[in-house]
């Protein structure tokens, strides 16, 4: 298992480098640069050139990137030229918001998605079809549209939940939870469907296998056959999909945080992109990529734990 962790961490280094390099190059190529945006229309040419040198924008792109990387490894992500605060101090408070959403999505996804998938696999007939139809909802509507509908129903009409805004856990745990319900479900709808579908397919496949017949032939009770043996075997392909789904959920938070006006990393990414605040955007990218690495690592560990062939090699 240690080898699994090591392998994943080694593979993550090129991932982080590629992603941050790619976003750095692309954002630097964008028309207009930071110096221009800071000075606005009034600046003189000399001021512009001087600011460029001061910001280090005159150096070759690769040198700029390596300089950033070198600092990043030491924990220094630079200073945002718009707010004059360090990037890390801008990002860290927002990390909790995004992580809260992601963890919430994971929990909802696993519990609801798995249940729906197993139910759909075992119940043929109209129950199965009803579950399929319900699951379809999350698949075909964009997460931000669902968010709007949920707001319209639960916040505007029923007034059960807040429409926008985020309450920190330290201020009020109850309000914190309430403020997260709609955002989590908006992101999770798609994930629930994917997990439900994958679980259903995996369960159908497993239930057709010989060892299920062998277990029944020994007189084992059906609930043990399904919940202990079948689900355990079906979990393997589901875990792989879960990783992909969670990575997709990261993208989902970008939209949902904007709709619900949540101070998370996703909404920051959009404004940083629109403002061409390169250092801030690099910081956000790095954080997101690290979240991806964490997800992949958890998937690998789960897979290794579930699959004896991997665990023992």
């Amino acid at each position: 298992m240690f080898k699994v962790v090591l392998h994943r961490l080694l593979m993550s280094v090129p991932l982080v480098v590629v992603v941050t390099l790619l976003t750095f190059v692309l954002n630097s190529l964008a028309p207009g640069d930071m110096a221009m945006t800071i000075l606005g229309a009034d600046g003189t040419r000399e001021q512009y050139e001087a600011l460029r040198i001061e910001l280090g924008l005159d150096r070759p792109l690769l040198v700029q990137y390596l300089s950033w990387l070198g600092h990043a490894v030491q924990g220094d992500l630079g200073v945002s030229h718009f707010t004059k605060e360090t990037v890390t101090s801008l990002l860290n408070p927002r990390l909790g918001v995004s992580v809260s959403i992601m963890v919430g999505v994971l929990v909802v996804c696993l519990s609801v998605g798995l249940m729906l998938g197993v139910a759909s696999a075992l119940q043929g007939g109209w129950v199965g079809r009803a579950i399929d139809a319900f699951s379809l909802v999350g698949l075909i509507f964009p997460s931000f549209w669902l968010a709007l509908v949920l707001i319209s129903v639960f916040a505007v009409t029923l007034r059960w939940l807040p429409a926008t805004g985020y309450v920190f856990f330290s201020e009020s745990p109850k309000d914190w939870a309430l403020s997260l319900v709609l955002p989590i479900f908006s992101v999770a709808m798609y994930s629930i469907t994917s997990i439900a579908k994958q679980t259903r397919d995996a369960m159908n496949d497993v239930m057709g296998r010989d060892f299920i017949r062998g277990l029944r032939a020994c007189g084992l009770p059906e609930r043990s056959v399904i919940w202990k043996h079948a689900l355990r075997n079906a979990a393997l392909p589901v875990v792989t999909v879960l990783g992909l789904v969670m990575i997709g959920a990261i993208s989902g938070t970008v939209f949902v945080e904007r709709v619900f006006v949540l101070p998370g990393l996703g909404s920051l990414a959009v404004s940083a992109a629109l403002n061409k605040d390169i250092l801030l955007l690099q910081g956000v990218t790095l954080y997101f990529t690290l979240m991806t690495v964490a997800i992949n690592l958890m998937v690998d560990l789960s897979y290794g734990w579930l699959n004896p062939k991997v665990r023992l090699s």
Partner: protein
Amino acid sequence: MSAAATQTPNASFMRRLLSRPLAVVALLWLVLLLVLSIGAPVFAPLDPLEQDLLALKQLPSAEHWLGTDALGRDVFSRMVHGVSLTIAGVIEAVVMASLLGLSLGVSAGYFGGLWDRCVQQYVSLVQSLPTMLIMLAVLAVFGQAMLPAMVTLGVMGSAGVSRVLRSVTLAVREELYIAAARISGLSDAHIIVRHVLPRIAGPVIVQMSLFAAIAVIVQTGISFLGLGVAPPAPTWGSMIFEASASLNDFPWLLVPSGGVVALTVLSFGLLGDSLRDASTESWSRPAVRQSVKARQAIQPKDLPKDSLLSLRDVTIVTGTGSATRTLVQGVNLDLKQGETLGIVGESGSGKTLTSLSLMGLLPPGVHVSTGTAVINGEVIDLSNEKRLTQLRGATVGMIFQEPMAALDPCFTIGHQLAEVIRLQGLGAAQVQAKVMALLEQVKIPNPQDVAKRYPHQISGGMAQRVGIARALASEPRILLADEPTTALDVTVQAEILALLRSLSQSRQMAVVLVTHDWGVVADICDRAMVLRHGQVLESATVVDLFHRPQHPYTQALLAANPHSAKPGDVLPTVDDKLMNITGVAP
């Protein structure tokens, strides 16, 4: 074979696809969108940009079919004019994803080796990329154009597509006919074109449909954020954004904006699912077990006095109504304790189904239409699944043909044995002791070591011994063995048969042995019956059956057995005429 098999596989595929109404509806919707994207002004004559300040936020009416928005613009017109952007974006993304995914996936799957490993690393890297961040970066560079963003989406999506295509290509590459083609002298390019591409055509189209669904949503999201398109051009995404601004007083706008996206995504998704179902020749739902009402058991007459197990008039069918096929017809069987009965027949004779019916473990879609079992004097109708389930393990045990596949790969041998033993209500220490005792009884060396192993760590012969141990754990009086040694080497087979023999004697267990191998019948069976096309042709003691076979089919089969033939020129064969004979031996 049915008449349908004479059609080319592609023709029957189209037929299957078009027979699903949902697929047809989905196709029609997508065709409609295509038409609208080309000729928007024809279908929506009202100017999408024209603002009618006197008709703000109106619900649908005769003049404005989907109402108007906050600036008085006609919603229906905006929707129709937005189609072309969506369609264009989808096409760009899908073409990119398919071309790249196809070339990477097929080449990686077919050629393997270093290239395959590189592609796999590339794919897992790309799948780990945070999509929206890359899209934001691309959009920052090419702000007002959708094309670069959609192409980038295509590149990122190609990773998932290539993964699927790679595994399909791998599956094809493993087929024996590919090896035969290589041996016959076909070049790789020739093999790919001739054998691989036709096989992946289906999955490619499925992946394209499913990815198109994703592309619609991403494209809508980009325009929702206000990127990718120069304002004030109407797009589906910007319509959703406008709906969000009017959420408090005019939520109606949500309906057309979200509805049209949903319908399009749904159509792509349905099309993809239908294509997948049509190409794999099976429906996405598995055949569900029919629940048959338990019939009243009828006491059979003329039962032998000392029979432990008797079956009377077992008939097994598949399908319903006019499509019913009889797989097993009127089988009778009697078995004494300590006796081994062989059921011998070729493939399709119904021998396995007969044994499964006693356990209530028939596959989905197959059920018993009549049949009575008498076990230990108790009369049970074979439709009574509840009673049969209760008998599993403790009264009737079973071992199967593929010993490794009969064990759960996720649990250790010891755990799986303990699980069954615990059903008897023993304490933990007793359970452990019994696990060891069982493993020793089936003559497994180093039982402590083996108990800690997983099924993939033991050989086939050992797995079958474990299977026997598990079946014996609940001390059944009757053991059903379905081709237990067919998958094993002949030396291992001899040992397993010897084991079964000794266990049957020491425990006075009745054994039903299903096999196609006459040598196995001669080895351990006391009596045997010959099954063909679901009917019992002959039943006798083993000595009588081999030395004085009554039925012409049995005689021909015994004569045609290469193992009984004298080494000479030509082996006697079963005449084709003889293959059609039915009827029971006198």
